[in-house]
């Protein structure tokens, strides 16, 4: 309540006005609501399907990126003819599957490296 008689009167009137029952009875409103629900059918499923498809696509993309970044093992260099055993002063590096690089070590004063 307030200290203004006019305002008190108005608030009483707002209370009376607000408590009037609706024109439509609760039972009739319930029937209308159920009928509208039946008419509109089930809730649309496309948002859930779209979300599922997006999640699956992102998961597949992430998996592909992870696999693409993993270092691949050097394949068997079957196409390159190698000696069955290397001498002790030769070290072999593979730049890729088809490119062997031989390092031949030798004495510090050797002019031709380790090659005979």
């Amino acid at each position, binding site marked *: 309540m*307030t200290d*203004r008689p*006019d*305002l008190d*009167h*108005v*608030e009483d*009137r*707002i*209370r*009376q*006005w*607000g*408590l*009037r*029952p*609706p*024109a*439509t009875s*609760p*039972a009739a*409103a*319930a*029937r*209308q*609501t*159920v009928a*509208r*629900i*039946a008419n*509109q059918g089930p*809730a649309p499923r496309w948002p859930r399907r779209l979300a599922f498809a997006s999640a699956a696509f992102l998961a597949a993309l992430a998996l592909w990126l992870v696999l693409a970044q993993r270092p691949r093992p050097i394949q068997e260099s079957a196409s390159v003819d190698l000696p069955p055993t290397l001498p002790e002063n030769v070290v072999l590096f593979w730049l890729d599957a088809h490119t062997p690089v031989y390092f031949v070590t030798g004495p510090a004063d050797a002019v031709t490296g380790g090659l005979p």
Partner: protein
Amino acid sequence: MSLMGMEDDLARVVREAQAGSTDAFGLATTQCWNGLVRFARSVVGEADAEDAVQDALLSAWRGLGSLDDAAKFPQWMTTIVFHRCLRMRRFWRLQVALDGVGERGASQDPAPDLDVAALLARLPPRQRAVLHLTLVEGMTDTEIGRVLQMAPGSVRAQRRRARARLARVLEKRR
């Protein structure tokens, strides 16, 4: 039934509705209808109140699974009705002068010496909502805050502004 007058059977009915029973949802509608329409009438006006509540009920049916506590169905529904009313208000921008023709349906006012509908139309929707929930439903500031999604201090501020505005309008009428 009051908006806040929750009963156990309503919570049970709402849980049945959440399980997919439209009949149960109809029963919940029966129990909440009067309070929701009374609230909507204060916010959006006599003519559009029932449409606002019907639309809100359809939205509620679609989102019923998101209601965690079935006992809070009346408050949850009131919040949905309030947002629905705000959208309607934004669309129509209803503004009725106190001495003007009044709102549609205002003639149903049983005591025509004061056009309450026209008087409420002078207030912004949030102030009407706060005034209604305070005066008609007898809710506390905390309860109103939960329904209208604002702090109790904001509820008090809205009510204070509403009363000041009504007082100014009454002053002008003299």
